[in-house]
């Protein structure tokens, strides 16, 4: 079965059996190892990617169902040498510790900012509730998302 995946604006023609998860395809077939996984059962959020701008858990999403949809991984956020405002904000606010949850966290935040550039603290916390950070940098993460939203809003 041939499936066309559009990952970070690039087309990939893949021969899939049908049972492959998006996580598996991104990491093992296409080499987008920025997408992490910490549970493989939809409980940690580390595998979050964007599909048409909305966050999905790639560990429970079948790749074959996403034919011709736009998938964004963490590798697709920065533009050339320039970090995305969320990436910048995560660094500036000290929202990165071990970094393993960071790609999923940033993409879940992007999904929120796609709908709302000025989320309240509560809205941010709620949007990121499915993304675990065991280093527990939640305070800084929320600050970073807020600050990135402002930056994006002000263009």
């Amino acid at each position, binding site marked *: 079965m041939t499936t066309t995946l559009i990952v970070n604006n690039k087309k990939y023609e893949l021969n899939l059996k049908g049972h492959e998860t998006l996580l598996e395809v991104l990491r093992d077939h296409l080499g987008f190892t920025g997408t*992490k996984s910490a549970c493989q059962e939809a409980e940690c959020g580390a595998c979050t990617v964007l599909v048409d701008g909305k966050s999905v858990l790639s560990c429970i999403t079948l790749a074959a169902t996403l034919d011709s949809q736009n998938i964004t991984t963490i590798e697709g956020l920065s533009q050339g040498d320039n970090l995305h405002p969320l990436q910048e904000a995560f660094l500036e606010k000290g929202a990165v*510790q071990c970094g*393993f*949850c960071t790609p999923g966290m*940033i993409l879940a935040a992007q999904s929120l900012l796609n709908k709302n550039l000025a989320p309240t603290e509560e809205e941010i916390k709620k949007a990121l509730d499915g993304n675990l950070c065991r280093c527990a940098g*939640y305070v800084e993460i929320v600050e970073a998302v807020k600050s990135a939203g402002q930056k994006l809003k002000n263009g």
Partner: protein
Amino acid sequence: MLKSSKRLNQQDKNLKMDNKDFLNPVGKNIPRIDGKGLVTGQTKYTFDMNLPGILVGKMLRSPHPHAKILKIDTSKAEQLPGVKAIITAEDTSKIKFGSNEYFFPHTVDQEALESQKVRYIGDEIGAVAAIDEKTADEAIKLIDVQYEILPAVFDAEEAMKPGAPQVHNHVRNNIGVMLPVNFGNAERGLQESDYVREDVFYCQSAAHACMETHTCVGQWETFSNKITLWISHQAPFKVREALAKCLKMNLNDIRVIKLASGGGFGGKLEMLPMDFSACLLSKKAGGVPVKICYNREEEFSFSRRKHSMIYKLKSGIKKDGTIVAITGEVIADGGAYCSYGPTVLAAATMRIFMVYKIPNLKITAYRIYTNNPVSGAIRGFGGVQSGFSIESHMDLLAQGIGMDPVEFRLKNITEPNMVTTNKMIITSNGLRECIEKATAASGWKQKHGKQQNICRGIGIGIAADVMGSKMYKSHESGGAIIKVEEDCSVYLFTGAADTGQGANTALSQIAAQELGISFKRIKCTAADTEITPFDTGSFASRVTFISGNSALLAARDAKQQILNVVAQEYQCQSEDLDIKAEQVIKKASNSVIISFEKAVELCYSFNYGTQVIGRGSFNPKTTPIDFRTGEGNVSGSYGFEAQIAEVEVNKETGEVKILKIWDAHDVGKAINPQSVKGQIEGSLIMGIGYSLYENLQFKNGRVVNPNFGHYKVPRSVGIPPMESILIETNDPNGPFGAKGMGEAALLPTAAAIANAIEDAVGIRLKELPFTPDKIIKALKGMTK
């Protein structure tokens, strides 16, 4: 001469940092040195490792909590297409390993693959390498193991009774470790006290739950006799040591490389059978690399866990609040093997001397073997359990004589420049200031005992922590090398293992500050046993203090080499020179002689040709602990903190809402205040999780909640507001006065919350975690 100044200015254009901050980086919020790789997904973790021909390794585990191994038949599995190697104890030296070999040789009790008995559900007895996970899983199922099932024991107190099943044949009553701490005359002290009370506290087991599970890739090039092990870890040099021992190889035959590591929290501090197996499987497969990556269930069930503890205390005080004597008994469920047991007990008992002046103390701690999964190190070591127990007990003692808990603590705490009863040498000590600042910030006086009408309360807990712990080896040194290249770019090689705390950044800040150069010049290469100097690892809050001092010494050495050349060229004394903010200056007049760049150019010039390679090795001055009494000075410095929690209890639902937590922390000097705050908050939130819901549960030795659905960890919703107050006491032995502080913040959290709950609704919780059912039960008990 290569010119670098242009590149230097353009670097980090994304980050709004002032260049002058990079020139004097200590004390500044310098963004993570490895940050861009982390936020863009470019950084490779062991989890991401892939090599040509890489095989998938899986562990063969015991399904029984206690059984004799009669026979292992691997023949069917060997026939399965795609299986490349199978190992059992027959392939090993059967040499045992342990984590406290130096001081506690009798606790070295685990074989890399068990050969005689299995002692917990999950005990490793073999491993398979295959072309993919499915084949490896199938091969594991095809291995036929015959067991003789033995009676098992799952409760520490039961295991101590005569006639209980013996987990290790040579250990009577399953007492794996007994640690007596004994000073003064505690019995007499109790008799001479005006008020004496007894309390028993119960602390549950918990999991590290690192986001990156235990993962390693092993490759054994047999003809060159060289092993490379890539690993997600806190202590690669410890892994190397254990591998060398079990494989009977030299240290330099084994290269352990720590890649970016997705958390550790004490769970990645020792070699596990999986690490050994990845290497040995690779050898058997002809040198092909083998990757073993735990899934979440394996991580929860078979890695290491927190010791559950029963903490019994009986103490006496004078009417004026002076502590006279503390006595107690600690019983810890150690599970099947000893792991870091002895040091966990030491931390659970001796730590009290850093906090309080106690003339008479007698606490005996027992670590008991059971057929539960293995207890080991976890952030705070035993300090979280003892912190809850002791700090709850202190509140109850104060209450007994009608004294304010803050006043009671201020009366008994340790002071700067003192020697404790057990001969710990305390230099800087900001504990008093921590308590004063935290109480002032929280409005303690206006709130304590005054909000019961709205079910709100406020509680305090205080704690102290070590900056390293010489309980593992004859030394606990850290080493560093600074290499200044011809283009003025600089390498820092450190043995320290950054598992996310920001060690590489902090150590680079220290090195840049001491060398007098911009932080931007530095690249940090860390924790590779073949190319970086030795370092014992990231534990005991030791990295900033010990590895930081080694980075400082290496930078000082490199600087001296540069200054020697400048002094020779300019006909002056190198002692009169220094490098500050990229300029070589005369100390007396602050006048600039030449720039750093020119000075380096001079070093590598035709006339001098001197390579600049600085070295630093730091081993804190301590005295060995006498483990028969608990006497000794375990650390080169001590850190302190006071924490205050304000809570609201819902009497209908039993829910505890934390309104705010204040944490005042003696950090010596904050090398990177933002990172320090991140460590305090992260640690504190882990403490909140442990206080309110985290609970690794077992049934007949099996973990019953091995996933994030049933083992709850803190999430973004429900994190209370926190205020970190940094107290800088400029430790005389710390690099630029700094202390470590990765662990202390979760030590008093449970007690602060328990004390606040009592202040709010009058119930005293002595069993963790404080789940709604316990609150409701206690409230009902009160009305009866």
